[in-house]
């Protein structure tokens, strides 16, 4: 069942068997993917923010800003930020929900969670934030718990995306909003070519120079290509039980924000 909606692998590669899944362009056993993704993020956690700024030339802040704006989060709301990493979205949500609300920063990776917690504490964010190490496919929260759930640049690393979307929908309150911010497919062929050139050459090089790890950034570029395109992800969200699903292409479709409401 895993990734039944994912597009075909690159030419020459076989689609994954039922007991395997993609790890970049490679096929790995399903039970190994989480561990391998964890290794990637353990390796890059320390330089994650710096690399994000360098790789996206700071534009990731604008993508996240748009996500926050569309969230409709208000004082008193409960928000779950899955794969929250170093806490960019959590910080903004914390401001919005105020002292009467709560934000849960969840990440499967302990290193990322540790970096995120340290960063938020250093900036004086405390009181309305909880930190939970959790797997997006099996969220440790009761159903109908959150007014909004966000997952930014995390879904493509999840082994079973359909299961994760179903579980995120489960924990949303009726009327709650799920926001998936993720790399997607550029809509312009010229931009697509330039983007390929950049991500398969410049990203691993930057990874090597800054974080001392080119393999993780090679995986990043490959995992983006293997991630479902805009319409496929929208269909997956509808299949998970969300309604009014729509997506917003940003920077020519390099990134897309998908939004769906729990009925």
């Amino acid at each position, binding site marked *: 069942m895993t990734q039944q909606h994912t597009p075909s692998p690159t030419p020459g590669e076989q689609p994954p068997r039922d007991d395997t899944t993609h790890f970049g362009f490679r096929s790995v056993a399903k039970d190994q993917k989480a561990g391998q993704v964890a290794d990637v993020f353990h390796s890059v956690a320390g330089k994650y923010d710096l690399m994000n700024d360098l790789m996206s030339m700071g534009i990731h802040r604008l993508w996240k800003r748009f996500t926050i*704006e569309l969230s409709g989060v208000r004082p008193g709301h409960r928000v779950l930020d899955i794969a929250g990493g170093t806490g960019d979205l959590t910080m903004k949500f914390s*401001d919005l929900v105020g002292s009467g609300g709560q934000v849960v920063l969840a990440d499967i990776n302990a290193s990322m969670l540790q970096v995120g917690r340290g960063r938020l504490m250093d900036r004086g964010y405390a009181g309305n934030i909880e930190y939970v190490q959790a797997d997006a496919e099996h969220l440790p929260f009761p159903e109908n718990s959150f007014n909004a759930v966000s997952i930014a640049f995390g879904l493509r690393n999840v082994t079973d995306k359909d299961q994760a979307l179903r579980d995120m929908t489960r924990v949303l309150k009726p009327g709650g909003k799920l926001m998936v911010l993720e790399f997607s497919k550029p809509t312009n062929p010229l931009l697509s070519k330039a983007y390929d050139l950049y991500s398969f050459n410049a990203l691993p090089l930057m990874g090597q120079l800054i974080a001392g790890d080119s393999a993780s950034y090679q995986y990043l570029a490959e995992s983006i290509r293997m991630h479902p395109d805009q319409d496929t992800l929208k269909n997956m969200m509808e299949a998970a039980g969300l309604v009014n699903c729509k997506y917003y292409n940003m*920077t020519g479709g390099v990134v897309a924000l998908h939004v769906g409401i729990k009925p």
Partner: protein
Amino acid sequence: MYPGPTLQAALTRIIEGAINTALDLDPAGRATMLEVLAQPVQFSVTEPAPLTLTLSAVGQQVRVGSSAVGEPALHLSGQPLAFVALALGDNSVFASGRLTVAGDTATAHQFQRALDQLDPDWEGALARHIGDIPAHFIGQRLRGAIRWSKSASSVLNANVEEYIHEESRSLPGRRELEATFGDIDQLSLQVERLEARIEQLSQKAGSPDPADSSPEHS
């Protein structure tokens, strides 16, 4: 959709940064502004591309968004030039209909007052970077330059006005003009009275006056 989400986010980020930086330099102004923005205030530019900016208070910061909110306390909409004119102090934009206002007028007045009262301490901000004495020196020079330019501008206006009215006689002077307008008003009133009188007389001449046939009045 133009501008796209990324550009909109960039624009709102720049505006938000500028507003919050200015408010950081005026704590009293910040408190007043945050009080006014407890309910969102929305600005909609209609041309050349429709663009919405929403200002609201989040914690101790002003937040700028590019999405319309459900029920803003105040909603101003119009063309960019009308907003520029308003920012420069031209309040006629409302009377002329170049800017339309919807919502609570008290909020509009409070917002305008908060803007007028805003007095960021630019010299203090500069002093943090280059030290007190250089900042004060630059501040003094800047204030002097602003004072001089204001005074020069008003003197220039007065001189040009005097030349046009008194020396070249291209235009009549203000008092002459007022006297002429007074005469015109007077003449207009007299003409109206005359017209009414003529009307009355022509009615009398055209219809038989019951008073004429009455022997006791003849």
